[in-house]
């Protein structure tokens, strides 16, 4: 076996050196009634070539690879990824390193993550960002737990009904055993969250909004922040499409206290929704309550700049059950990938590409409205929007699918009331001709 370097001779020599005759003897102290009986019930070993073939045989089933355009987002987005992102983030020194516990041997990872934190904070308009956590959903759950820690005795959080349904489910999973109360805030007719009836200030720890929200609508965070703060709560905002902040006001500049979300759009393949990237940022005053790893700048014995994991007093091996959270890793390689991607775009590039997403989505939205679709909500949107489609669209969608165009995500799976409603997403990967083809089909 090519991964196991031991020759039979060597095994014998090593066994002799440790005073054993057989490999089994190494396990002699394991009680009989704990033992595995028989062989593991697994398929036989495959050669590298048979393994490749097995994946190729799955190929025909893996049809999205050959789609001409996928106009679906909903938390996982198709964006162009420059080849340099793949090749740089794939360098084996990055890929095969462990958590940088020995900083002298890991300045590459550490500087890259420090840069990731900085770019993330700048993007979100926040003072500090962590080294990333699992995904957008757990980031939101951790953000609310953090807000509850900061608010000490308050035990209620209010969560917009327009936050991605899966994220709300994860929040419920994380918060329920602690006995916290979760209130769901309804939407107004524009598709924005209605903040007119928040619970009383002595109960409410935080209000969570998503912008652009699940229906693509951009929340009015400038208005929301004072309302939430007046209600004695922290404003937690999340996102599934970080590209939006290439164009829109950053949550930080609107007054958000904690900002988190999913960073998959930044150079990471959808891969059925994982591995993703939980981006997480907050204000400096709250940094010691922030969950997750963080990298800081320091100096070495000669006064030379260097980077280390820091603020680990928050972490598990020191405070154990009093830790800010149980997270003791980050999505390191995904964070690095996002950093390379952000660096490749630059500020100018990100703005242009975000605007192009916006323009293309607007073009489709106009086209669909002209073809008989109706907006589900009339609030402003970025690169996603929800519409009720005319009768017959189901069949049209099937036909488009046959031509390699995946035309929107049906929303009735999320809410039976949303029959005929579809969530469309248009990124830079969708050309005008595809959009025209789609609209023409709808008009037919």
């Amino acid at each position, binding site marked *: 076996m090519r991964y196991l370097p031991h020759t039979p001779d060597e095994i014998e020599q090593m066994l002799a050196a440790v005073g054993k005759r057989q490999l089994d003897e190494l396990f002699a102290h394991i009680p009989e009634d704990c033992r*595995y009986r028989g062989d593991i019930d697994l398929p036989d070993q495959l050669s590298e070539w048979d393994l490749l073939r097995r994946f190729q045989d799955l190929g025909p089933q893996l049809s999205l690879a050959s789609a001409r355009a996928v106009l679906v987002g909903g938390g996982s987005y198709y964006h162009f990824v420059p080849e340099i992102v793949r090749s740089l983030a794939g360098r084996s020194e990055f890929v095969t390193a462990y958590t940088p516990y*020995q900083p002298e041997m890991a300045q590459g990872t550490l500087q890259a993550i420090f840069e990731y934190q900085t770019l993330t904070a700048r993007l979100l308009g926040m003072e500090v960002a962590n080294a990333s956590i699992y995904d957008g959903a757990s980031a939101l759950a951790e953000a609310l737990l953090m807000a509850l820690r900061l608010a000490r005795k308050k035990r209620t959080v209010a969560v917009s009904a327009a936050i991605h349904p899966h994220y709300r489910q994860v929040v419920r*999973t994380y918060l329920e055993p602690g006995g916290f109360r979760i209130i769901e805030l309804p939407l107004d007719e524009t598709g924005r969250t209605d903040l007119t009836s928040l619970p009383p200030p002595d109960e409410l720890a935080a209000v969570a909004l998503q912008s652009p929200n699940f229906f693509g609508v951009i929340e009015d965070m400038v208005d929301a922040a004072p309302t939430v703060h007046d209600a004695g709560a922290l404003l937690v905002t999340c996102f599934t499409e970080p590209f939006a902040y290439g164009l829109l006001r950053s949550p930080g500049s609107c007054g958000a206290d904690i900002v988190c979300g999913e960073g998959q759009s930044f150079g990471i393949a959808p891969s059925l929704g994982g591995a993703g990237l939980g981006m997480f940022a907050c204000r400096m005053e709250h940094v010691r309550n922030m969950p997750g790893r963080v990298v800081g700048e*320091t100096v070495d014995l000669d006064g030379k700049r260097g980077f280390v994991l820091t603020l680990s007093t928050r972490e598990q091996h020191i405070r154990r059950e009093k830790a800010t959270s149980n997270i003791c890793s980050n999505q390191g390689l995904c964070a690095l990938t996002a950093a390379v991607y952000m660096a490749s775009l630059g500020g100018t590039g990100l703005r242009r590409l975000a605007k192009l997403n916006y323009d293309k989505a607007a073009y489709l939205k106009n086209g669909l409205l002209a073809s008989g679709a109706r907006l589900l909500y009339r609030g402003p949107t970025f690169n996603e929007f929800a519409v009720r489609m005319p009768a017959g669209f189901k069949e049209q969608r099937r036909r488009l699918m046959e031509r390699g165009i995946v035309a929107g995500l049906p929303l009735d799976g999320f809410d039976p009331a949303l029959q005929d409603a579809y969530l469309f997403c248009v990124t830079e990967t969708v050309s005008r001709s595809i959009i025209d083809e789609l609209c023409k089909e709808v008009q037919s």
Partner: protein
Amino acid sequence: LEEALLWEKGKKGRSAFSMPQQDVPEADLDASLLGAAPDFPDLGEVDVVRHYTRLSQWNFGIDTGLYPLGSCTMKYNPKINERLAATPGIASAHPLLPELSPGMLRILFELQQFLAAITGMDAVSLQPAAGAQGELTAMLMFAAYFREQGGQRRRILIPDTAHGTNPASAALCGFKPVPLRSGPDGILDPATVAAEMDEQTAGIMLTNPNTLGLFEENIRAITDIVHGAGGLVYGDGANLNAVMGIVDFKRCGVDAMHLNLHKTFSTPHGGGGPGAGPVCVVKRLEPFLPVPRIVKTAQGYDLHSDAPASIGRMHAFFGNVSVLVRAYGYILSMGPQFLKKASQLAVLNAVYVREQLRDTLELAYDRPSLHESVFSDKRQHAFKVSTLDMAKRLIDHGYHPPTVYFPLVVPGAIMIEPTETECKEDLDRFIAVFKEIAREAETDGERLRQAPTRTKVRRLDETRAARTPCLIG
């Protein structure tokens, strides 16, 4: 050589991105929504390539050399699995359109079966994105189980040889961790468990093999005690690499356990992640597993969310799928025979190193150990040389240091886990170097205290980093 920070480079107007054509008209946006362009540096493609190429050169990975971090299982990460994960059909699968990627559900379903077979457990969820989230998932299931049983239990037993995240995970679910001392032989005494286990106690979190590399030989007695009081047993599977095909966790009495695919199943650590921490449970806990579950149907594979007892969703979608795919590839490459062989050789390597170094370093517990062994710096105290000094000196010889100062039960711990992918010559060289360092400790301690000297930076001021945090540039 130095490399500036990203924003110390670049020039407004450069770009490393190939901007697509503006093939649609520009659309207006309400000025009140418009933000300033993000304050990112603008770099050319060459700038970006050189920046990250240079950064990578300051990193040490498995591909660079021996990385004997105890409890971390730094084994070789096969390149072919990187290629499999990049298969277009896998990389492009959309999580809300699984019907367009049925092959993906098949991979996940089969992987669940594989992990069940390897551990001896009955059912598996792949959602947890890391070991710590796997622990959390299991603890959430314990809480849900007792809720359903009608009697919420508040205490949970955690030995001092357990992994560091165990108490935090338990606390998140409303459990109060009750620490248990391991015995003088490094393993848990059933009597200690019996003394604390009661009807208010949810159960025990056991790392087995534990963080001393020792098998908890009394596990059957312990799990009987816990089960006898109506409790549940959680097994931290971080050290599974020692016992594949050798230990059956269900037979041991474990009710739920998590695995670290990035350890045992060789997916790369990526400088801190992404990992994957699937949870395996016995039948009676299956109803509590996260949703959606992947089920096999007559037509193929489907998702199933109608599970009223489920703790709910742990991940926005299906977990770190790109990691899961690599583990799936690894298991298929190894087959049952070589998985077991991997465990045997991992233990052989660890025991070999232990025996070769036992005259050099103080062995913390002199009894049969498995995939790792724990030493201390006791013998070096006389020379004012610490574990840290020896660790840093290893760096000068081109080795990544072992895990140090963990587990906490051993003062000045040095925890060496070579894994099975290291060959004898390389171990012999490492052993020789360690012996040389121990000699140096006696004769030239200052040299160790100044180490490392061949790296880009010397020892870093971690106190300063924590006292006056500078977290963004």
